[in-house]
């Protein structure tokens, strides 16, 4: 028989696989892929654990707060009540800040805004476990870091409004903050670039025998960028004192985390392959977030090298003010998110330990709302994108180089202001 005419008997035709989320608009939300272990069940290895030692934790989910608001298990941090109360205040302030800026965008005071609703425990919880001198290389959804470092929200608003007090001089997309004084690196709109830069900063800190570590964040979607691989490789090779965080908020605009490879393996699992100890944590559990961050920071400070943390959370708000999630996910998906609301969960814990009351909570909400109102009034007095004072357009030629070269001076003259 001629081999060329032989019929394939058992071999099926190939199938092209494009992953799809379990639920789209019109469907019931479905988080059955998210396995929820009971709080307190995950073991806590010593900080000198190897990557291999953490292989189970990288696929697990570290949780401290149980359904009753009780802190349980080996990851329960030794944490003062006032640190928790500060965390609660900062998370609530972040949420109200976001609400106000969203409103300002609708009113034409800025062109664009990005909320972090539902993810407040990531930035605020992690900041609570770091030293204020540690250098942060965040994404655009960790505004809570600045708030947790008590950075001026008036200053942040001025950036969002691109007004006369905007230290970025009206050059940057709203929310692309920078604060050298708060050790908060200038945000880029390019996804992932900060992740690999943070490793370079950490290497420099180690080279200079400094004590400061670098901490960086990336979204689940941007882990697909080369910068994730660059960061992981160089962090492992040079054992850099850096904490590498993947914020898995389930959605990269309209692409669910499966499009970034999150269904084949957890994002934390990747750390083990690079030889980097990795933890996967309930990102809406303030205490668990604090505990894993402290573990990772302690490792970095002790010259034990980098740690990868996957923070499992949910982007309750649209990607940005230019996005409409009702077009790609069930409308009630956010309210069905199994890990709940980080603010409500910390509140429940504080009430459980007798450190907080419903009355105090209501009063605090009023207080932060008033703080935001007052700040917004001040920031708006310095101008908004829609109206009022801005920087002189001539300043657009500054800071391209340290000193302005002749061709920019010539173009400045052409602008003719």
């Amino acid at each position, binding site marked *: 028989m001629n081999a060329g005419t032989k019929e394939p008997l058992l071999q099926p035709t190939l199938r092209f696989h494009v992953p799809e989320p379990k639920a789209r608009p019109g469907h019931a939300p479905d988080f059955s892929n998210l396995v929820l272990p009971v709080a307190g069940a995950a073991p806590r290895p010593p900080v000198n654990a190897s990557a291999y030692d953490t292989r189970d934790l990288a696929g697990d989910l570290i949780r401290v707060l149980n359904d009753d608001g009780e802190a349980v298990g080996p990851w329960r941090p030794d944490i003062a009540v006032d640190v928790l109360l500060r965390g609660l205040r900062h998370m609530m302030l972040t949420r109200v800040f976001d609400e106000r800026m969203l409103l300002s965008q609708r009113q034409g005071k800025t062109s664009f805004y990005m909320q972090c609703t539902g993810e407040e425990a990531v930035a605020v919880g992690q900041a609570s476990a770091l030293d204020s001198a540690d250098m942060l290389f965040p994404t655009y959804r960790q505004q809570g870091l600045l708030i947790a470092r008590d950075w001026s929200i008036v200053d942040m608003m001025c950036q969002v409004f691109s007004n006369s007090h905007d230290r970025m001089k009206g050059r940057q997309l709203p929310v692309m903050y920078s604060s050298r004084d708060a050790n908060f690196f200038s945000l880029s709109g390019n996804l992932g670039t900060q992740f690999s830069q943070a490793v*370079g900063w950490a290497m420099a800190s180690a080279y200079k025998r400094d004590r400061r570590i670098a901490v960086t964040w990336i979204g689940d979607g941007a882990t697909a960028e080369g910068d994730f691989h660059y960061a992981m490789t160089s962090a492992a090779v040079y054992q850099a004192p850096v904490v590498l965080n993947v914020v898995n908020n389930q959605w990269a605009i309209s692409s669910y985390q499966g499009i970034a490879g999150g269904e084949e393996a957890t994002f934390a699992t990747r750390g083990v392959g690079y030889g980097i100890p990795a933890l996967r944590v309930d990102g809406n559990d303030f205490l668990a977030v604090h505990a894993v961050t402290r573990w990772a920071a302690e490792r970095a400070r002790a010259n034990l090298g980098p740690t990868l943390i996957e923070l499992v959370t949910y982007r309750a708000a649209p990607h940005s003010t230019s996005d409409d999630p009702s077009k790609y996910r069930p409308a009630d998906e956010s309210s069905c998110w199994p890990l709940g609301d980080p603010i409500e969960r910390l509140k429940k814990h504080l009430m459980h330990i007798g450190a907080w009351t419903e009355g105090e909570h209501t009063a605090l909400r009023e207080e932060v709302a008033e703080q935001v109102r007052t700040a917004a009034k001040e920031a708006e007095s310095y101008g908004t994108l829609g109206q009022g004072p801005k920087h002189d357009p001539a300043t657009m030629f*500054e800071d391209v180089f340290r000193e302005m070269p002749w061709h920019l001076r010539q173009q400045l003259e052409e602008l003719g202001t």
Partner: protein
Amino acid sequence: MATMNMAQALNSAMDTMLARDPDVLIFGEDVGYFGGVFRCTTGLQQKHGADRVFDTPVAEGGILAMAVGMGAYGLRPVAEIQFADYIYPAMDQLVSEAARLRYRSGGEFWAPLTVRAPCGGGIFGGQTHSQSPEALFTHVCGLKTVIPSNPYDAKGLLISAIEDDDPVIFFEPKRLYNGPFDGHHERPVQPWAKHPASDVPEGYYNVPLGKAAVIREGSAATVLAYGTMVHVALAAVEETGIDAEVIDLRTLLPLDIDTIVESVNKTGRCVIVHEATRTSGFGAELCALVQEHCFFKLEAKIERVTGWDTPYPLAFEWDYFPGPRRVAKALQRVMEP
């Protein structure tokens, strides 16, 4: 003073800066123990330590991300990209990060990094070891671009680049590492030792960025060139007997416009020479600038002699390379009445 070829002069620049400034670090693929594939970092790790001169993973994007992070910390990183042709995976870190950091942060953060990369052909490197991508970088606001043509300038310019607070792309014409090359590939290789620019001070000095050099004074025409093409242009001038002024631009951005304008206004004729491809090449920018600044003094159309708009073909390297014969023809054309 010592006699140095260009690789030795570059090595001496890095050695000098490592000794002067503890914040200078040198890194890249194979630059550590081995000393680099073109030997430019030979001995530096042994002398200054593996924490100051070290190997990196084969990840150009990662190398420059590291450099940006280190620069933001306050160091002066000097990163080697093994061939200019390999720089593209790092474009995001250069174009959107290093070049924009000072601007986007309102002057709060900057990355004073130097990127060294061998460029140009003439060594049978084929399309991935012969490119001259300088115009991609001069097109990016926030980057400075430097290309030396001899050992003395190479050392002085590299020191200036390392000391500069802006990111500098430093292209090293690889055909010039061991000797001046005038494009006559059929002739024996000349060592730098016979060239006056191989007299290089052993210690610190600098050649400022943004200053061109008049390599040969002349009155009949102006040749604008940089890197290897400076030597090719000199050969063409010699062979045609045309009394042309040859200008080595040395820094493409910021460009020394005054030296160019003064010369073209004097000669009224201009030939632009580069090894890179022609369309949207740096010669197009030079041509526009000469036209804008010298229009009423021009007595002939401006000529460009460049690499062809094709990839650099291995077996046809010398058909591609804009050698002295092509430059000579262009000179003769601009001299036609």
